[in-house]
């Protein structure tokens, strides 16, 4: 049985720069939540803090009522086992083939799994993302879109409860963006109880895949709701961001 994630008053600073200044957000069970915001507003920091890759300065991250910000390194490792993550630039291991990248979490964590079973699951994961024929390729032989899809396959292969995406469509052409969006939606629909968080500033993609949208601005969530709420919101910051206008409260 999966748990929902609740973020309460999360704070993170780097020196004098306050990046997260009290983020409150709930990720509903089995849904895709997209956090939008301008570049440099701390979206990736929020993601890495949620994963335990960065320690917050204050606040809580509650998974099924357990505050993971207070866990030690070993306990945090166990919590991370429940997560999958797709990094902004895929972060595939360039010393391995695509197949070995996807097989890596299985071989590391399910050490007793027979190689035939590993192969079966990796082949299935690669087929799901449309890379059935690319398993033998090295990472440097892949296009940007193929890397993202391979990263999705790697994140999904162990069937995580929570899947985090850091700007999954950045740098892709519109067709590949639509393809990756469809892949994310399909992964969500075909994985029971999967709770996803996507960091993005792509409004079109957000409208296509989100169940819930939250906007991060100046270290806080200033607005949250359904994609439709965002389209009709009268909040000046949201309005400027959604419409992509230069005039408004957000100064460039």
């Amino acid at each position, binding site marked *: 049985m999966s748990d929902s994630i609740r973020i309460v008053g999360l704070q993170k600073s780097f020196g004098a720069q306050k990046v997260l200044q009290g983020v409150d957000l709930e990720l509903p069970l089995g849904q895709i939540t997209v956090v939008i915001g301008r570049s440099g507003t701390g979206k990736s920091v929020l993601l890495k803090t949620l994963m*335990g890759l960065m320690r917050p300065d204050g606040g809580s991250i509650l998974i099924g009522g357990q505050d993971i910000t207070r866990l030690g390194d070993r306990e945090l*490792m166990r919590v991370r086992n429940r997560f999958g993550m797709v*990094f902004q630039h895929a972060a595939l291991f360039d010393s391995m083939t695509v197949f070995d990248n996807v097989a890596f979490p299985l071989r590391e964590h399910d050490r007793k799994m027979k190689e035939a079973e590993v192969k079966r699951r990796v082949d299935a994961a690669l087929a799901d993302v449309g890379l059935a024929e690319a398993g033998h390729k090295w990472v440097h032989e892949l296009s940007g879109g193929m890397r993202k899809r391979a990263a999705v396959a790697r994140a999904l292969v162990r069937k995580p409860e929570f899947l985090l995406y850091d700007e999954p469509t950045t740098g892709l052409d519109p067709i590949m963006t639509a393809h990756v969006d469809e892949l994310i939606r399909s992964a969500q629909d075909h994985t029971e109880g999967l709770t996803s968080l996507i960091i993005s500033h792509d409004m079109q993609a957000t409208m296509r895949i989100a169940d819930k949208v939250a906007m991060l601005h100046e270290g806080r969530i200033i607005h949250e709701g359904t994609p439709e709420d965002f389209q009709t919101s009268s909040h000046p910051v949201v309005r400027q961001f959604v419409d992509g206008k230069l005039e408004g409260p957000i100064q460039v």
Partner: protein
Amino acid sequence: MKDSISLLGGVVLRVVEDVGQYARFTMTAVLGIVRPPYRWRLLFKQMEFVGNGSLSIVAITGVFTGMVFAVQSDYAFGMFGARGLLGSTVVLALTRELGPVLTSLMVNGRVGSAMAAELGTMRVTEQIDALESMAIDPIQYLASPRILASMLMLPILCATFDAVGAIGVSYVATYTLGVNPGPFFDRMMWYVDTDDIWGGMLKSAIFGFLLSSIGCYRGYYARGGAEGVGQATTKAVVAAGVLILVVDYFVSLILAPMSVNRS
């Protein structure tokens, strides 16, 4: 004056912080060697990289060091009419000092730099974050096999250096310099003890630990893209090179009384 003190304080703080971070990193890596999971495949891969990959440069360095050392020593011993001591003196120097130190410095240039660059690149491309996100201890996965492989392979490389160095000395002394082979080999066998070889191999294992742990540490904490990786690599090679020479002195001080007791 106040500014100078504050500047000095800042430097001292940074050094203390760096040493503390290195100690913590190394401790985690060493614990990672003894703690499961054991990744034999990674260990053998690193042993092949450190050992087999360095064999040719170590052999070439060893043979030419022995040869040039023979030429220079012959000149010096010739002034005192003690050319018969050439073999034993040069081979003692090779096994006790030159073997472990030069082997480690050569391997540091090749392996220490590669470890720093590889881990640094993994850091700046988020591959280390990816490991962590998959609930894998990145220090145990990346640093532990590299450190253990270096500690296992450096003594073997050092022994290779000693052997080819001795061959180089023997060739130059007996064929080129015309030293009488009888006394040459006789004294070499008489003065050079297995303890000298073991001592050199022990030193090289320590140096292997130093160069690999520093290389991994610098790479692991690299920041700032390609430039950061470059800086981390340079720092790793320089720090390990200097530390090998410093630590060599102290290890020699510890090993010297054992040699005295033996004689």
